[in-house]
């Protein structure tokens, strides 16, 4: 008997059941109202929205019956879904199709059943809207039309939910796509790995505040004949325009750094390039550019700051100094000059360049004072670059509103 009750397109039908993703979902108002209406309008005690699964019949709504599912085998809904139209049994006790059915012959004593298939737009019957009575009775054409209309309402509701779910998953997919683009773009703006530099132990971190948005922070380590250039910068604004500016800034610095010996000259060159390149979008960058030259017993750092937070040096004895002299932002005003400041670092000193986003993530929204960052750094004298970077990571608050980047250079013995 069960074999007879399996539709020819059962595999595809079950796929449709899965697609609507309704099995085992919690009860909800729309379907409860429909079964209550069906029972009231047809004057029967029981009405059910059933979904026929592979081995069971699950009830999305069961008015007047305290059962959530039954085995598929005896279920009359399994027969009903073989039809294109309604399936009617007016007295099950004498109907040859049902008289041996345990629901009919057993304690439940089912006598009347009218089920309308819940048919998808592509022709699969998911289950039924049915009404059930323990008395034999007839059904009028009007009642059948009502039941059919209510079944259409159930199907409309299921279609609506499916399309809402599709919209949500489409949005999630679009967002994931945007995040992928943002991440790829961001990665193109950062060095894949830091080059080895003799006499320096380097570490860098980049944290994005919003995964679907490209930030404007960047860092770079550019090897030179005498040592290396350390770059940490921040393009004003967010999104692709900021990213484009970031890319221009990073690659321009890589190019000019080969020709202009001093960081201040390099920033002046970057400034004039950006003023010309960026006339229509009116954006600027802030940059800390440090030329590090290993010397006996340490390193000589020459630094220029274009409107950027002062880098900090954790001395081997635990004092923390801000270095560099502030010059204006880069890329706004033609002819801006950038001042170099030179500092000697000893072995064990740690230089930290960072963006204002990192400062705010440690010190609080809107903060420009670096005291909180100094407090984090003070106990880290003599530690490795990775250890310092980890400690800074741990100090970033959870409420990050801006991207945060930092570059750590610990001076180590060249021997």
């Amino acid at each position, binding site marked *: 008997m069960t074999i007879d009750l399996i539709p020819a397109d059962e595999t595809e039908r079950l796929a449709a059941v899965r697609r609507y993703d309704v099995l085992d979902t919690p009860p909800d108002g729309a379907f409860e109202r429909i079964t209550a209406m069906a029972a009231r309008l047809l004057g029967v005690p029981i009405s059910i929205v059933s979904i026929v699964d592979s081995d069971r019949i699950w009830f999305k709504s069961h008015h007047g019956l305290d059962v959530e599912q039954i085995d598929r085998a005896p279920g009359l809904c399994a027969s009903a879904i073989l039809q294109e139209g309604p399936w009617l049994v007016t007295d099950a006790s004498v109907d040859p199709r049902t008289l041996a059915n345990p629901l009919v012959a057993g304690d439940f004593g089912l006598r009347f059943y009218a089920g309308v298939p819940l048919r998808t737009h592509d022709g699969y019957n998911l289950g039924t809207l049915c009404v059930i009575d323990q008395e034999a009775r007839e059904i009028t054409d009007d009642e059948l039309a009502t039941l059919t209309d209510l079944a259409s309402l159930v199907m409309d509701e299921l279609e609506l939910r499916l399309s809402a779910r599709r919209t949500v998953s489409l949005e999630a997919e679009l967002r994931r796509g945007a995040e992928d683009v943002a991440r790829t773009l961001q990665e193109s703006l950062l060095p894949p790995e830091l080059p080895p530099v003799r006499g320096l132990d380097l570490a860098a971190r980049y944290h994005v505040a919003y995964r679907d948005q490209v930030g404007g922070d960047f860092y770079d380590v550019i090897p030179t004949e005498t040592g290396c250039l350390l770059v940490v910068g921040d393009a*004003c604004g*967010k999104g692709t325009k900021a990213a484009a500016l970031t890319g221009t800034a990073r690659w321009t610095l890589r190019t000019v750094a080969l020709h202009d010996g001093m960081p201040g000259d390099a920033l002046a060159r970057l400034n004039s390039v950006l003023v010309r390149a960026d006339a229509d979008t009116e954006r600027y960058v*802030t940059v800390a550019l440090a030329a590090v030259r290993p010397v006996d017993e340490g390193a000589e750092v020459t630094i220029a700051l274009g409107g950027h*937070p002062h880098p900090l040096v954790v001395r081997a004895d635990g004092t923390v100094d801000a270095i560099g002299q502030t010059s204006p932002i880069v890329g706004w005003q033609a002819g801006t000059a950038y001042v170099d400041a030179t500092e000697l670092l000893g072995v064990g000193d740690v230089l930290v360049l960072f963006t204002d986003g990192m400062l705010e993530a440690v010190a609080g929204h809107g903060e420009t004072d670096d005291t909180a960052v100094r407090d984090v750094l003070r106990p880290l004298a003599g530690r490795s670059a990775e250890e310092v970077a980890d400690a800074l990571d741990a100090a970033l608050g959870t409420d990050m509103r801006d991207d945060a980047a930092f570059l750590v250079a610990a001076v180590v013995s060249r021997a």
Partner: protein
Amino acid sequence: MSGPRYTVRTERAVPDQGGAALRMVVTGELDLLAEDDVARALREAVGQAGATSVVLDLTEVGFIDSSGLRALLQGRDAASARGLSFALAVVDGPVTRLLAAAGVSEWFDYA
């Protein structure tokens, strides 16, 4: 977040000696969200017929970021392009700290 966290208001002083002195007052948070409105108000102020000077009052600004700074710079440049004087009214606080950190304190006149 409910409603803007900033306000922008432009006042036009009684014309004297044939020119109008404009005072634009911004309060609240001058960030990415406020940038467009502030920049537009500044362009409109600077473009007003008869305007000869613009004072941008930022004494009630509690927060400003790089986007806010960009709006100030655009206002300054727009005023300068039309031959208007442009000055900031500030007190020691977030605005002066950001201007100093960006190295642009000297790029502005102060009222």
